[in-house]
């Protein structure tokens, strides 16, 4: 029996004490294409980053060709024969293909013609149709990826890791890319690739490994899988003892249509997306990475802009809107509670009261010529109590609060604006269990009050527990709608990946 080229034994990686991968066993055989599949947060990226030396293991072992290794940088991993091709490629856009290939191997005197000839020969040997003299910035996504791969092969790597390699490729480019993978396989290169498209995994991989919540679920040969089995393995968790254990038995009826998105387009992230949001309901949005959920609602809230030409329509109460910045959206009653609270959510060195007052000022704009400390204090007293923000006082800096209380501040900062449409993007990410329950209660209360509430979440049990209707997004648009009563994890995940 052939020995594995790469092996991970009981691999565990913890971030701030929280395991991203937990006791994972993984083997990669020579000349094998191995697909890594799982939901968002399943640990796929962390596992591959460990292999590529981007992060190091907290505990466990990594072996390459039977020898224990511990690469601490991508360069070290590359010396060991492991290279990773990221979604955002690492090429220098203003340099030519040949210059990028030989970057870092320059000599004191370089003959450009020699580099071009060597690159041409090398690319031809790989059967890659890329001109060595072409400037990288002018290449398409697939060709850029080819150059990345060629660079990895040039460094004689034995293992190439692809993170979502097909996300930005057209169907034709995808086919070409798969041919490349097969070509590399023939040369004895082992490949690990992460994909959210099950068809791709079933089409190209030799073996498939499924991760869930940081744990290894199953590894098996492709022919032993079908879509249903993969989906079951991706979502089959036991929730009976958790916050999400109880199934929804009643949903709120839809009120008036508050938001209608019609054929929205935004670069290659949102593709002809259409959906509606109704008053008095929680509309859950589920999707995997690259599904365009956040981008869609950032367009609605004026955080980012839709396409300049034929970008579609966003109608708020049947009135077309086109917010170029968030301020007019806030004035019209639309708020977006960000998924990245530390960067976009609050001013960390300012106090709770100041942060909440900033929320009010964003709504009032020029109507508040003078700042009022008493108004800020009154506001803080009201919302600290309403949202049960646990702090020694309203003058505490937000940076000193726990994740859950920081999130409550971000939510309160939006709610002081008295919105009609509230968009929560990953509202409970990085939040403790107690705070999750409180945030869910708050979301339910807002819907009961007749507000239109959108909850974007990558955590399926959360979407199912909190939503009245669930929209599933895939590759830039909503592809399926479920009532909370009919939805199951399998159905939702099937729609998200199929």
């Amino acid at each position: 029996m052939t020995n594995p080229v790469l092996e991970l034994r009981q691999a565990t990686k913890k971030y701030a004490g929280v395991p991203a991968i937990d006791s994972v066993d993984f083997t990669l055989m020579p000349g094998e294409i191995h697909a890594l599949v799982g939901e968002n947060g399943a640990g796929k990226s962390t596992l591959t980053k460990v292999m590529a030396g981007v992060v190091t293991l907290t505990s466990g072992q990594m072996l390459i060709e039977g020898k224990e290794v511990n690469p601490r940088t991508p360069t070290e991993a590359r010396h060991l024969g492991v290279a990773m091709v990221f979604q955002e490629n690492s090429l220098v856009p203003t340099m030519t293909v040949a210059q990028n290939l030989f970057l870092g191997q320059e000599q004191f005197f370089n003959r450009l013609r020699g580099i071009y000839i060597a690159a041409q020969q090398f690319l031809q040997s790989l059967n890659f149709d890329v001109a060595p003299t072409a400037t990288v910035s002018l290449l398409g996504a697939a060709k850029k990826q080819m150059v990345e791969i060629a660079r990895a092969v040039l460094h004689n790597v034995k293992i190439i890791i692809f993170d979502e390699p097909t996300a930005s490729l057209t169907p034709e480019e995808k086919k070409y890319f798969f041919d490349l993978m097969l070509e590399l396989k023939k040369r004895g290169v082992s490949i690990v690739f992460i994909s959210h498209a099950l068809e791709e995994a079933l089409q190209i991989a030799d073996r498939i490994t499924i991760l869930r919540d940081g744990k290894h679920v199953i590894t098996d040969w492709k022919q032993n899988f079908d879509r249903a089995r993969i989906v079951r393995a991706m979502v089959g968790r036991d929730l009976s003892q958790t916050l999400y254990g109880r199934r929804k038995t009643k949903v709120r009826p839809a009120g008036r249509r508050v938001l209608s998105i019609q054929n929205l387009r935004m670069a290659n992230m949102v593709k002809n997306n259409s959906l509606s949001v109704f008053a008095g309901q929680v509309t859950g949005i589920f999707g995997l990475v690259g599904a365009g959920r956040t981008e869609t609602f950032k367009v609605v809230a004026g955080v980012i802009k839709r396409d300049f030409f034929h970008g579609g329509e966003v109608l708020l109460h049947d009135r077309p809107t086109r917010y170029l910045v968030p301020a007019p959206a806030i004035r019209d009653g639309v708020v977006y509670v960000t998924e990245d609270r530390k960067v976009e959510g609050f001013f960390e060195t300012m106090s709770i009261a100041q942060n909440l007052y900033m929320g009010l000022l964003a709504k009032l704009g020029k109507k508040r010529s003078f700042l009022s400390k008493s108004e800020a204090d009154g506001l803080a007293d009201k919302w600290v109590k309403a949202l049960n923000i646990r702090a020694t006082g309203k003058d505490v800096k937000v940076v000193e609060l726990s994740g859950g209380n920081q999130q409550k501040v971000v939510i309160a900062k939006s709610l002081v604006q008295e919105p009609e449409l509230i968009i929560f993007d990953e509202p409970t990410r990085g939040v403790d269990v107690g705070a999750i329950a409180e945030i869910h209660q708050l979301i339910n209360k807002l819907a009961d009050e007749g507000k239109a509430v959108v909850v974007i979440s990558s955590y399926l049990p959360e979407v199912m527990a909190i939503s009245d209707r669930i929209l599933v997004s895939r590759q830039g648009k909503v592809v399926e709608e479920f009532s909370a009563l009919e939805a199951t994890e399998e159905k939702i995940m099937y729609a998200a990946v199929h």
Partner: protein
Amino acid sequence: MIAALREFTDRALGRGEAAITVPPFDGALKPNQLLEEAAVVAELDAPEDLATDGRSLFVSDGSRLLRLDGSQLHEAERLDRIITALACRSDGGFAIALEGKEVRIRGGKDDGKRWQEAAGQPFCAINALAVTPNGKLIATDGSARHSYNEWSHDLMSLGCTGRLLEIDPVSGARSVIADGLGYAFGACSAGDEIWVCESWRHRLVRYGGSGSGSVLDRLPGYPSRIAPAADGGFWLSVFAARTQLVEFVLRETAYRKRMMAEVEPQYWIAPTLSSGRTFLEPMQGAHIKTMGILKPWAPPRSYGLVIRLSSEGLPRYSLHSRVDGKNHGVVAAVECGGSLFVLAKGSRRLLRLPIADIERSLLP
């Protein structure tokens, strides 16, 4: 000047009126297959409209007026021309529109009365009739330029000559409640108001009471006749779904004119009551196949849809026959004896769905 500039920039950038967008079928309009699974009561030759007196269901089929007894249809009347609209009056008579050009009373105390014009303008495409609580008739005249059967010509020429009419059968007085409508197709009384469907503007509009205004706007299809539901609210039939392709063609004047001049109407890029009969039909241009998997949907050329509205005009739920179905081109839906009867003109079928079953399967 500013409006002209705005129109120019909108056209260039695909914004405002020039945005080629279609509302989604979601929320209460989430697709199902209930119309496709409905029991077929009868297959007819040329069905046009349904009406009920509360006890029996009446169907117009060409020039015949049929009554449903149990599960059998029997001829109740035969007229000299095609019946394009039908309404039951409280005195046992009928109001009937013939070829869209005449409204006639049959039976009851006003038997034999007939009208061919209102406000000096002849009827052209009377396509729906309803009776108000005070016994007057409401009629919708779809277009002043195109006959009843040429509704797609009216859409493709961006017609807005529809009228909402009121006829007093006793005095014979006729009045125009509203004109300039983008194909008026279906009306009914709602309290002290009259609600009328404007098909080409994809909306339901109210007149009377506290003025006029939109009841339901931006529908994803072309609404047609509307009928009251027994426990309050309404049944709104939608005879075709909107698509981006048709919306695009509607904005391309030169293309549209040439298409109308050179192509047979049944092959126009336009909504239709049924499709899939010939390969000459225009393609609808969707990503039907992805990664080798045939998707169960595509933008439809024809569609079947009935929407249940609340008494405020909010959609509660809907019944569909999707792109791969047959019961398309729904032009009438009427409630009678605990069942919903639906006329799918595309498949020329009369369908029946028990309302208790519908609500059990669709309401939480």
